[in-house]
């Protein structure tokens, strides 16, 4: 019996019981549809985060700390233990260290981390944000190589500032044309043309520690702080952020390295910070950011830096952690789809057993004219396979349709919520998922068809011929 004959036989048989075949296949379609939409949601989530990582070059970014901090102990609250580690400090993260790292051939750029809280005032509106100092050379690297509007810093000492979408939002300013915004945004935000923003001056307000007031030399009863205002020109605005990015990574404002260093401030992040703060140039920086040229250099450079007694933290490590998390999500989503498919496979078994009962006499006749048990088994196996392939193909189509629909609704919903982000795709339907779903559907249906087919092959022809 040729494969073509088997296929023809099973198609004929399935056509004879159209409604039942349709309902059974519908079960598989829904099962595969659920599986595909669920897993493609998981895959989409993972892809979006991976792309955010890649877009910001986070895979090739290292953070270098001056000491081998016992992070576990610090996290578990054992500050003494963590400090104990600090006492082993053998190398300061100073300018010579910076030059040493910068000289490494694998390193693209290195700069000290310098971030502090500020208040900004613009057009009479104020908001709290953080200011991050970056070298002008960062303009050549992701993600700063792409500006939304305007340009990156002209030099490390330019009196310039770069704003982000979030900061503008906090200032109740909107760059979008009014008609694109929600009614809510239209009421609360002021629309401002980009042209009038670039080149405008913005006030950066910082607090400084006033020693005189602290010592009570002036007795106006105020807190020992006073404010300093630095005026910076708006050089550019960062692009509309990806919807998965957070204000922590995409928010805040940027200032050139040297300019930022000169902004008077009192950093008051912690008591420890206040007490231990020393002259950075001689005592060293808290953190250096190292950007590598190639991903493959990450391991060797990390080893080298560790050998120099620096503590190194790679964001790629964190990504591995995230990926493990995604695996769990994928598995949970896949399980939901798999349950739907198991239910569908019970439907296949039920349909096939019914069909064998109905066709007992026919099976007897086929055996009497020379069908072997194996051929009978193949006929029913093929029927299950056809249901699987049909259900698989239509199921993938259904899964895709559902994911498009859900994506469309989600984006509309996000726009209503006044999300500043660009439209995003929550779902991802890669080839491996399509092929995998089709194979899985075929596998499940063949597995479901196995018992009924084996049962059909064992039917006693004499009894079957007496059957009506």
């Amino acid at each position, binding site marked *: *019996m*040729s494969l073509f*004959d088997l296929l023809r036989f099973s198609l*004929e048989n399935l056509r*004879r019981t159209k409604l039942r075949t349709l309902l059974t296949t519908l079960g598989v379609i829904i099962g595969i549809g659920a599986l595909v939409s669920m897993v493609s949601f998981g895959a989409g989530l993972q892809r979006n985060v991976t792309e955010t990582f890649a877009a910001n070059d986070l895979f090739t970014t290292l953070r270098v700390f001056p000491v081998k901090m016992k992070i576990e102990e610090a996290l578990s609250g054992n500050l003494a233990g963590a400090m104990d580690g600090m006492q082993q400090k053998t190398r300061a993260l100073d300018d010579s260290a910076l030059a040493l790292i910068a000289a490494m051939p694998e390193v693209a750029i290195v700069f000290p981390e310098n971030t502090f809280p500020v208040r900004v005032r613009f057009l009479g509106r104020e908001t709290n944000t953080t200011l991050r100092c970056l070298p002008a050379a960062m303009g050549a690297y992701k993600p700063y190589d792409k500006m939304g509007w305007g340009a990156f810093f002209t030099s490390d000492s330019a009196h310039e500032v770069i704003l982000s979408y979030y900061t503008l939002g906090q200032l109740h300013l909107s760059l979008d044309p009014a008609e694109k915004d929600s009614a809510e945004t239209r009421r609360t935000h002021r629309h401002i043309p980009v042209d009038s923003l670039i080149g405008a001056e913005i006030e950066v307000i910082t607090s400084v520690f006033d020693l005189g007031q602290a010592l009570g030399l002036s007795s106006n009863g105020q807190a020992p702080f006073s404010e300093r205002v630095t005026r910076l020109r708006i050089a550019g605005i960062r692009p509309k952020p990806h919807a998965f990015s957070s204000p922590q990574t995409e928010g805040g404002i940027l200032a050139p390295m040297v300019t930022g260093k000169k902004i008077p401030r009192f950093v008051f992040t912690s008591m420890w910070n206040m007490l231990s703060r020393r002259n950075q140039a001689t005592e060293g920086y808290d953190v250096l950011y190292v950007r590598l040229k190639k991903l493959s250099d990450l391991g060797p450079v990390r080893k080298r830096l560790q050998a120099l007694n620096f503590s190194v933290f790679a964001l790629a490590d964190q990504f591995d952690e995230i990926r493990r998390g995604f695996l769990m999500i994928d598995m949970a989503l896949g399980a939901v789809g798999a349950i739907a498919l198991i239910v569908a496979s019970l439907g296949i078994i039920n349909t096939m057993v019914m069909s064998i009962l109905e066709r007992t*006499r*026919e099976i*007897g*006749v*086929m*055996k*009497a*004219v*020379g*069908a*072997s*048990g*194996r*051929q009978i088994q193949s006929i029913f196996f093929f029927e299950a396979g056809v249901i699987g392939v049909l259900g698989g193909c239509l199921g993938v189509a259904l899964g895709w349709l559902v994911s498009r629909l859900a994506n469309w609704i989600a984006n509309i919903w996000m726009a209503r919520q006044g999300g500043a982000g660009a439209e995003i795709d929550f779902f991802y339907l890669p080839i491996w998922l399509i092929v995998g779903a089709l194979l899985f559907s075929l596998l499940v249906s063949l597995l479901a068809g196995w018992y009924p087919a084996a049962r059909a092959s064992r039917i006693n*022809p*004499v009894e079957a*011929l007496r059957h009506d």
Partner: protein
Amino acid sequence: MAVLIEAIDLYKQYRKGETAVAALAGVTFAVKAGEFISLVGRSGSGKSTLLNIIGGLDSATSGQIKVRGCDLTAMDRESLALHRRNVVGMIFQSFNLIPSRTAVENVELPMVFAGASRAQRRRRAEELLDLMGLALRKHHRPAELSGGEAQRVAIARALANRPAILLADEPTGNLDSRTAVEILDLLLQLNQERRLTILMVTHDEPAAARLSHRMLHMLDGEIVQQQELRRTT
């Protein structure tokens, strides 16, 4: 002439709870190639059981049944399928055509399992139906055929893979007497012209006497009498 079928002390027992029913109780006989044998006997005497065992549909409890020298009792399921497919053809009282398939598709069925090509089996099926006088009924379904026509389709199907033996279990049991005569004449013709060996179960002893070379009388699972007949042709 060569011995085609040889049964030696064949037993078949059916267990019905505690009691065992002996459908065959020591059957021994031989059939030569080209013979036309009739099996007669009361209802329940084991005729169908014997035919099913020779056809490879059923298996004996003990004894031997050899067809062309091959012992069916020693065969596995796969070999028995080959035996049913190629060595014997069977027809039944109730025709046993597949209702959803047309006449020509029913005749093609044994050739499908034998792996014949579509064109090949279609050609042979049409030839056989022409031979049975059913040229105009090829694409009718069994429900659209008369009893006689249905039995002719069944005969055509039994002959599809050119078997050596035709086993007929009361082939005229469901037919009126005139149609029955037509079918019996057809069987006689096949036996005479094609030297097809035929074993036929029947309750119509006069007809059996007219057609067959030998008549075996069965009673309670045994062949109690072998009657040699002097067939006129």
